[in-house]
């Protein structure tokens, strides 16, 4: 009898063990399926789909790096491959949204990837003054002044455009000390007359989902600049909507509720007669004052057709024979058409695309008005300027 009980107990215990083993096996299979299912999903997707452009980031994705003995041995091939596979990860655009959402859901972060929302405007919070960048800008512009401008009769001006983060209140988000920044940024252009734009701007003057200012909202600032330089801006301008629903990079990457803007340009009767010449990677060729909105490019590049090393606008109806040279970034491309109304020739130089050592071969500086027009964002990342 006792033996029978023991045998029953052993059978029961072996049954329990078998059941446990079976359960463990299924759990193990589930774990493996979850891990390799997710990894395999992204791997298969990345193998099958090869986008060349990111809609949410508004940029071309990196191309497969060149492999040769030199790039392999110096490690650049390896590091570029890492960038390439990250860029070409399947579902990348959706993953950027998930990343932003996870910041709020997992950590209760008051911002999404550094973006906050105020009055329906998405704002990329600028947190730190980059002293190295400002010092770099100081050296660069001092060299340009010494090499190209000091010995001329050019009249020099500078205006700094605040980015949207400037309009946040202290404690609302932790943005950088703009008072200090403007103080330091002014010392980048000690040779130029300062034009204060920040005090006349408000958050309303910017797009909701794009970092730039709206052309139709900055006529007052264009007039202020022109007036300081002793020029006039003959109007009137009429608004033309080129894109009804403009959602830019900040909007595409954010899950905050926000509205789309209408992308508008300002036209005047005389603009029909202007000639625009671009100097870019295609060489010298005819450009457009307002280019078409293309599906695979940033809609903001409608202004002057996007960035180029140098763009010249010739205005035969100008009230004077004066010439203007603008050293600027993307913010300059939307205000340049307004300023060009008052000048016979306006040259826009983007030092991100045109190295400063080439200036003397491209422009003959004599007695032009020269305006240094940079946003706080670019001055804080001035190493992009060459």
């Amino acid at each position: 009898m006792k033996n029978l009980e023991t045998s029953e107990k052993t059978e029961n215990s072996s049954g329990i063990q078998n059941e446990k083993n079976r359960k463990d096996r299924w759990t193990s299979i589930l774990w493996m399926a979850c891990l390799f299912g997710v990894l395999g999903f992204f791997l298969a997707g990345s193998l099958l789909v090869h986008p060349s452009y990111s809609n949410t980031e508004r940029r071309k994705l990196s191309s497969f790096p060149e492999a040769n003995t030199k790039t392999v041995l110096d490690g650049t091939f390896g590091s570029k491959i890492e960038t390439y596979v990250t860029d070409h990860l399947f579902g990348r655009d959706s993953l950027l949204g998930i990343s932003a959402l996870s910041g709020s859901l997992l950590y209760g972060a008051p911002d999404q990837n550094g973006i906050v929302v105020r009055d329906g405007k998405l704002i990329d919070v600028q947190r730190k003054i980059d002293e190295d960048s400002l010092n770099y800008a100081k050296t660069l512009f001092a060299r340009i002044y010494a090499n190209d401008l000091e010995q001329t009769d050019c009249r020099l001006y500078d205006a700094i455009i605040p980015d949207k983060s400037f309009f946040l209140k202290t404690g609302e988000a932790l943005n950088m000390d703009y008072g200090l920044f403007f103080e330091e940024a002014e010392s980048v252009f000690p040779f130029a007359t300062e034009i204060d734009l920040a005090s006349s701007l408000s958050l309303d003057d910017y797009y909701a989902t794009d970092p730039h200012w709206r052309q139709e909202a900055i006529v007052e600032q264009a007039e202020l600049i022109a007036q300081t330089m002793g020029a006039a801006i003959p109007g009137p301008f009429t608004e033309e909507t080129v894109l009804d629903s403009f959602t830019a990079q900040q909007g595409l990457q954010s899950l905050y509720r926000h509205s789309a803007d209408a992308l508008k340009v300002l036209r005047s009767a005389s603009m029909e007669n202007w000639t625009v010449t671009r100097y870019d990677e295609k060489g010298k060729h005819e450009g457009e004052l307002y280019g078409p909105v293309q599906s695979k490019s940033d809609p903001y590049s409608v202004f002057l057709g996007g960035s180029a090393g140098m763009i010249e606008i010739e205005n035969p109806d100008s009230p004077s024979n004066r010439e203007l040279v603008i050293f600027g970034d993307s913010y300059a491309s939307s205000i340049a058409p307004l300023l060009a109304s008052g000048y016979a020739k306006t040259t826009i130089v983007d030092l991100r695309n045109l190295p400063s050592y080439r200036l003397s071969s491209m422009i003959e500086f004599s007695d032009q008005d020269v305006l240094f027009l940079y946003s706080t964002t670019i001055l804080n990342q001035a190493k992009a300027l060459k």
Partner: protein
Amino acid sequence: MVFSSILFLIWFVPAVFLIYCLAPKACRNGVLLAASLLFYGWSSPWWLVLILGDCLVGYVCGRLIESSDQKRRKAAMIAGIVFVLSLLSIFKYWNFFAENLYALNGIDWLIHGLVLPAGISFYTFQVISYLVDVYRDQAPVQRSFWRFALYVCMFFQLIAGPIVRYASIEPELTDRTLSLQQTAEGSRRFLCGLFKKVLLANPFFALAAFLEQQADPCVLFFWIRAISVTMYVYYDFSGYSDMAIGLGRMMGFHLPENFNYPFMAGSFREFWRRWHMSLTTWFKDYVYIPLGGNRKGKERQIRNLFVVWLLTGLWHGAAWNFVLWGLLFFVLLTAENFVIPEKFQKSLLYKIAVRIAICISFVLFYDSTLFAFGQDLSAMFGLAGLPFVNGQSGYILRSSIVVLLLGACGATPWPKQLVLRMNTRYGWFSAAGAIASALLLVVTISRLAAGTYNPFLYFQF
């Protein structure tokens, strides 16, 4: 290549694991070694020359130790150790000493362009432990060069440990089994480490960087930063160790544990029994005990502790802050061993003081210069004239409270205990855990795709 990169996670791991599983058993070591060399040489193929040089010297000296008389055995061991330590000294410490020499008397012995090869401190220590163990007859000699190279180069622990002792892994280099359960267990551990790194260490790093950027700081910011830095170092390193152990398990290896909830420690001694355990035991077995340990009187013990902690500091980096970090623990441990009354050591006040001191030690560990550490320390203790809180404190607390709580909770054994209890009580819990992990993996991949900052701190060692 880092573990928390898309290239490693989506391409390298699935490809290597698939080939490894499909390969005949006899070829698996070859697959693993090839993958390890590819992994290590990815950023700089020149590093392969160094590591293979170490492998060759370690292997040859091991064979010489086996086949020689006592005198030659010792010579072979010393020659091997001198060689690997010379490489480590040149690549890691030469410029540190040259900089200090230059500062002292203007002699310029700097080698420009000298780059620290990733993981050199880890594999150097593995080769040394092998040679010493073989010499002491505590481990058998490895007669296959390729197996020895695999021991040194295994990609999952090559860069940031844990430091594996040859004797503990020797049987698995020859014969190991792959099982579904073991692989699943390994993948769980790997995911746990990956989540620690991407979902905790990176946000702590970002929080510390965020606080450093504040133009208008206050005392509270410096304390939150100190906690963030401490948590960052912990989750970064323990996350890597978990990933290494998990990947090892998936491939049939059992690597030693490296962390055991170090912040649960109530004393400095206990902290070091729980933090970077493979390094602590390495120094104990190969430096402290051979020097005499605590067997030759108090003075010798203090001297031995000094040597061990000086070397521990230097091992972490060729900079004065690491040296002082090591010496700080020498002072704290000596005080704990010989000065602080045992009764006080059992008090709550002492346990709080230990944690605060550890937190401060990691600020020293993390700061780039001693000057920066001095500034941080004076700000933390209200000597920099800053207010305790300011108008932005509310925003900072709102931004950081969840990650601080998650970090504090994750540094205790309670989440693990809860999961084990739930697994026992509810049959469905393990399946739910797998699905939740899959979702968290998607979130993790999304954060890597978004370019969240994620280099491993311990790579520099």
